[in-house]
C-alpha cells in the first residue's frame, strides 16, 4: 500500500528523444490508476521510471513520502506485470511464484503458505507443477499476476497486461483484475492503450499524449468534460465529432448549420472548434424539432448495426473559406481536400436506416463543447494546461 507522488518527472534518452516531458500527479493509496494514451506517448517509460528500471532525467518520485529516485528496483518493493508476461520458462509455476520470495530470503514454510494462497486466489493450484510452455495465454497471464501478488508489494504496476489475449479472454481477465484489486486494496498503476480498459477499470485515468499528461480525472470527467481536443477525440469509441466553427455575433456557425450557443465562449478569436458526442445526435421526424435544437439533414454514408447500438456515418462540408485556416492536427487530419468531413451518430438500433437515406438530425445546443483553435483547450473547462 502506498501513495506515489510524481513531481515534474521527465525522461530524455541519450539519443535526444524525450518520451516524457514533465509529469506531475499523485496516485492515492489503494487507488486503481490508469495511464492511457496512443503508442509512443510515454506511458511505458513512466512505468519503468516508477519501478526503477530506468533512471529519471529530472524531477522526483516519492513513495509514501520517501524519495526513491536513486533506489534500485529490487529495493522498491513494487511488483510489475509485463505485456509479454515474462514468466521464467525454465521454472514450474510454483517456482515462478516462489522466486521473489526466495530472493527475499523468506522461510520455506512462509513461502509455501504464500504460494498456495496466491494460487488459490488465481485458481492456479492445479497448474503449480506445470512449466509455462504448457500453459494457455490466460493461464500465463494469471501466473504473472500471481508472481506479483505473492510479494504483498506496495504497488502493482501493470504494463498492457491484456493486450496479448483474445477479445473474449481480455474482457474476462479485465473483470478478474478489477476484482483482485478491490480485494487486495493495493495501489495499482495500469498502463494501456485501450480506452475501454481505461474507462471500465480506473478509479482515475491519466491521458498521456506525446510525453505530456493531457488530463487526469475520473472516467466520467474525461468523457463529459474533456480538457482538450486530444482527450475529446481519444476517449470514447468512436470519439467526439469535431467540426470547425465560427462565431458570428452571438451565433455559432457550423458546417451543419448555425445555433445560439448555450454558453457564450470567451473571446479568443472568432474561429474555434466545436465537438459533440455521437449519442447526442437525435434522429427525428420532420416537424418535431424544438427551438433550442440545431436541426440539419444528412445522407447516411455507412450504417453499422451492432445489435445494441447503431452507428450512422455521414459527411458534412466545410465552407471553402474556412479551409484556408490552420486547424489543429486533431481536426485537419479529418478534413478532406474538398472540405468533406465525416461525422458519426449513435442511434437507437430499432430505427431502420439504409445506406443513402436522407436523415434529419437534431443536436441540443447544451451538448456542444467548444475548443480553442490554437491551444485545443476546452473553453468551458479550466483544467486544461496545454500550452
Amino acid at each position, binding site marked *: 500500500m502506498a501513495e506515489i507522488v510524481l513531481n515534474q518527472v521527465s525522461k530524455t534518452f541519450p539519443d535526444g528523444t524525450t518520451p516524457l516531458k514533465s509529469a506531475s500527479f499523485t496516485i492515492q493509496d489503494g487507488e486503481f490508476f490508469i495511464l492511457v494514451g496512443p503508442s509512443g506517448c510515454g506511458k511505458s517509460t513512466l512505468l519503468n521510471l516508477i519501478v526503477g528500471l530506468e533512471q529519471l532525467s529530472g524531477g522526483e518520485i516519492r513513495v509514501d513520502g520517501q524519495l526513491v529516485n536513486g533506489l534500485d*528496483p*529490487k529495493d522498491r518493493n513494487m*511488483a*510489475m506485470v509485463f505485456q*509479454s508476461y515474462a514468466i*521464467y520458462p*525454465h521454472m514450474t509455476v510454483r517456482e515462478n511464484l516462489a522466486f521473489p520470495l526466495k*530472493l527475499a530470503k523468506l522461510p520455506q514454510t512462509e513461502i509455501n503458505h504464500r504460494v498456495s494462497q496466491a494460487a488459490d486466489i488465481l485458481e492456479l493450484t492445479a497448474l503449480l507443477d506445470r512449466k509455462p*510452455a504448457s*500453459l494457455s495465454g490466460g493461464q500465463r497471464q494469471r501466473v504473472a499476476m500471481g508472481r506479483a501478488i505473492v510479494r504483498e508489494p506496495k504497488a502493482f504496476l501493470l504494463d498492457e497486461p491484456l493486450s496479448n489475449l483474445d477479445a473474449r479472454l481480455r474482457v474476462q481477465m479485465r473483470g478478474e483484475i478489477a476484482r483482485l484489486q478491490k480485494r487486495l486494496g493495493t495501489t495499482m498503476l495500469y498502463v494501456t492503450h485501450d480506452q475501454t480498459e481505461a474507462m471500465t477499470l480506473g478509479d482515475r485515468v491519466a491521458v498521456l499524449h506525446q510525453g505530456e499528461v493531457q488530463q487526469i480525472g475520473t472516467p466520467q470527467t474525461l468523457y463529459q468534460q474533456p480538457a482538450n481536443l486530444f482527450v475529446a477525440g481519444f476517449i470514447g469509441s468512436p470519439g467526439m465529432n469535431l467540426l470547425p466553427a465560427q462565431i458570428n455575433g452571438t451565433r455559432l456557425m457550423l458546417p451543419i448549420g448555425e445555433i445560439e450557443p448555450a454558453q457564450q465562449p470567451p473571446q479568443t478569436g472568432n474561429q474555434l472548434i466545436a465537438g459533440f458526442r455521437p449519442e447526442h445526435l437525435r434522429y427525428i421526424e420532420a416537424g418535431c424539432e424544438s427551438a433550442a435544437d440545431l436541426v440539419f439533414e444528412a445522407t447516411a454514408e455507412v450504417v453499422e448495426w451492432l445489435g445494441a447500438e447503431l452507428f450512422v456515418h455521414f459527411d458534412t462540408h466545410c465552407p471553402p473559406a474556412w479551409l484556408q485556416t490552420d486547424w489543429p492536427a486533431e481536426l485537419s487530419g479529418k478534413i478532406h481536400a474538398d472540405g468533406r468531413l465525416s461525422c458519426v451518430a449513435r442511434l437507437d438500433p430499432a430505427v431502420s436506416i439504409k445506406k443513402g437515406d436522407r436523415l434529419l438530425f437534431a443536436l441540443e445546443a447544451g451538448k456542444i463543447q467548444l475548443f480553442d483553435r490554437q491551444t485545443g483547450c476546452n473553453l468551458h473547462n479550466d483544467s486544461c494546461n496545454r500550452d
Partner: protein
Amino acid sequence: MKFSLEKLFWSGCGLLAVFYALLPVVWIVSLSLKRPADLNDQRFFASQISFDNYRNVFGDAQFPAALWNSVGIAGIATLLSVTLAMFAAYAIVRLEFPGKKAVLAGALAIAMFPPVAIIGPLFNLWRLFGLFDSWAGLILPYMTFTLPLAIWTLAAFFREIPWDLDKAARVDGATPLQAFIYIIAPLAAPGVFTSAILVFIFAWNDFLFATALTSTNAARTVPAAIAFFTGSSQFEQPIGSIAAASVVVTLPVILLVLLFQRRIVAGLTAGAVKG
C-alpha cells in the same frame, strides 16, 4: 512415385556422406584391434581381434600422462573461456557502452588470426616467463583463441532471451548478478553447452601449440604425444599404438557430442513469452 524417388535420392546422399566421413574412423578402429604382426596384412577388417595395442599404449608412462594433461588443459581452458565469454557476451548484448562494436570486431579479428604466426614469439615469451612446458602455457593460448567463437555464439543466444525476463527478475528483487545466475544463465544453457563443446574440441584436438610449447610429459597433450610414439623395438612400427591412442582420444569427443546434442538442439526459451 516422385516422392519416393526424391526420398531415395536424399537418403542416398546422406548415406554417402556418412560413409565418406566414417571410413577413416572405421579404419583406425580396425587397425587398433589388429595384432602387431597383422598390421601389414592388407585387410580392411582385423582377422583376429586383439587388445595388445591398447595394453601397450596404457603400459607406457607417456600416454596416461598425456591423457591427463589433455583432460586437464582442455577442461580448464573450456571453463575459463566459457565463463569469460558469458560475461562478455551478456555485456555486449544488454549494455550500451562506447566501443561495443570494436569489441565484437576485435574478437572476430582474433579468430581470423593464423595461430602459426605467433608460435615463434610465443615460444620465446613463454620461456622468458617460465610458462614453457606448463599447463598454463597451453591454457592461455587455447582460451584466447576460443574466446571469440564463444563470445559470438553466446551473444547470439543471449540476444534470443527476452529482455523482459531480466527486468522481471530485477523487479522481483534480484541483483543484476542474481538475475544473470538464476534466469539468464539457465536459459542460455544450450548456448553455453554449444560453445563449451566447440572450445573443448579445439583445445582437445590442437596439435600446433601442443608440440611447440611443450617438451616433456609435464604438459604434453595426447595429439602431441602420439607424434612421439615409438614402437616397442626399433624394428617395429608404432602404427598399432598410434591407432589405439587415436581411438582413445576420439571417444570423449564423440561421447560429449552424443550426450549433449539434445541439449544443444533443444530450445529452452519456449513459452517464455507469448507464442
